[in-house]
């Protein structure tokens, strides 16, 4: 009896796993087929011939440039976010000043803001300082909107660093700048790695800011780029599938290598609401 119950429970978990994985599997399979085979054959039959040319076609057809934009915009925003968040968290948790508590609550409130309420004013602000259709506008927006969550993840770690570190550094005549960059920052590497992974997922997948601020093809990132691109190839399922797989591949690869960091970061981001 116990055995039957156990089997039933296990079976229900596997059903959920299938539900999560089957649409992606189907996507990958049809990304290697042509329309004739997709429409005529069974959905999960392996392609009679693996049509990797679908991937080449969409990469050369415009996805390459979107991919490149996603890479550099994501990377630059990650560097700025993690650096500024680390500096601010250091100032709030390790330095002594009267307003630190108030400033911290400001960042915490920042976690709850619905971005759509800020979108129109942001657009008109950027328009007046030439940051519309300028990737730098997107980079600073990503940085600003990811700072609160990044700081929340860093905070816990900074609170646990022993006070003796600064004491020793100060007695040795070390300046605050050297203490931060050469002592504290290297010590926070594990938690910084978590914030990097989380920022990577957020930035790579972001849609509405790019869709609103960027109009030139040459600056579009993957999320917005594939949107137009799929319009062009509307009827070629293989090409659409290849485009989608290319757009999600970097995140999947990051997940395979850093799944524990991702799990950690996503659990920590649960405070975001």
């Amino acid at each position: 009896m116990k055995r039957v119950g156990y089997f039933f429970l296990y079976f229900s978990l596997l059903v959920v796993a299938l539900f999560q994985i089957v649409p992606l599997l189907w996507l990958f399979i049809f990304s290697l087929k042509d329309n004739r085979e997709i429409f005529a054959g069974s959905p999960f039959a392996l392609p009679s011939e693996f049509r990797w040319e679908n991937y080449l076609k969409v990469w050369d057809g415009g996805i390459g440039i979107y991919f490149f934009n996603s890479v550099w915009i994501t990377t630059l925003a990650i560097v700025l976010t993690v650096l500024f968040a680390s500096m601010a968290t250091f100032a709030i948790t390790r330095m002594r000043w009267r307003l630190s508590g108030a400033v911290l609550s400001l960042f915490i409130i920042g976690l709850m803001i619905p971005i759509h309420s800020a979108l129109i004013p942001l657009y008109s602000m950027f328009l007046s300082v030439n940051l519309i259709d300028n990737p730098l506008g997107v980079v600073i927006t990503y940085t600003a909107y990811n700072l609160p969550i990044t700081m929340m993840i860093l905070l816990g770690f900074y609170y646990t660093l022993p006070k003796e570190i600064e004491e020793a550094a100060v007695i040795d005549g070390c300046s605050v700048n050297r203490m931060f960059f050469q002592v504290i920052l290297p010590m926070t590497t594990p938690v910084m790695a978590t914030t990097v992974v989380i920022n990577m997922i957020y930035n790579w997948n972001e849609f509405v800011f790019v869709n609103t601020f960027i109009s030139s093809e040459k600056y579009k990132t993957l999320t917005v780029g594939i949107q137009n691109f799929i319009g062009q190839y509307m009827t070629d399922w293989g090409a659409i599938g290849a485009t989608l797989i290319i757009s999600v591949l970097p995140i999947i690869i990051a997940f395979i290598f850093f799944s524990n960091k991702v799990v950690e970061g996503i659990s920590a981001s649960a405070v975001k609401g």
Partner: protein
Amino acid sequence: MNKVMSNKLLIALYISPALLLVLVLVFIPLILSGYYGLMEWDGIGDKTFIGLENYINGLQDMKFWSSAYHSFLLAIFSTLSLGIYLVISFILASKIKGSDLLRKIYLIPMLLSSVAIAQLWIKVYNPSNGILNVFLKQIGVENPPAWLADPSLVLFAIFIPILWQYAGFYILIYYAALKNIPESLIEAARIDGASAFQIATKIKLPLIKEVVSVTVVLAIVGSLKYFDLIYVMTSGGPNGASEVMASYMYKLAFSSYNFGYGSAIGFLLLIITLIVTFIVRKLTTPKERIEY
């Protein structure tokens, strides 16, 4: 030591990049949104002050209320689905082999962009070649529906990918909370003769009440802000049947260039989100904190 660590200039230097960015790009736009809501404005030309007209129009706009209704429906669906995630997490946390791998598989959709998810599910729902209808035809359903083109089905059809996307996230949170319960408590209950079901409902569930309350807030507030997936999948259609608050606001501003009215709707979205967050927190937060 104290003197070095309370140097005002250095503090300003360390806090200001983050503080300035958040003030200028997050908080000031929010205030401006309320202010622009008082204007008639096409986004390019001059602003004309028209008082509360936009807000009054917003409160009488049937399209806005219908989009708010859809947002609240999604919020209710999302909250109810938390029950499924809880059950799965209980099973997963009961010393199942491979639970670590399963949890990670569940999480994969959460990592993908809403645009990719939307495009994938447009294909899943394709009336003639999508896997859903191919499957339905195989098991003998003769005229399976055109899911995304049917006004009475579209909201449910959109909810399935939302479920797909967030399942792993909530399961992860519940699983972590369940694993945090000390084994000794469970052991004590077992010795007293409690059944597995009693342990789950009478001991574990009350102990993770606080986490459940946080996820209820997340599910509701997240649904009220929902945008990307719907915008890409249906862009609010057919005929407004899947319009939500954020997509309605977005269209007003960036398709109709009605920036003043769009700002007012955006500001109402902010107010509604804050009020709902406050109410849900008040209703769901347990009175006393549980320590163990």
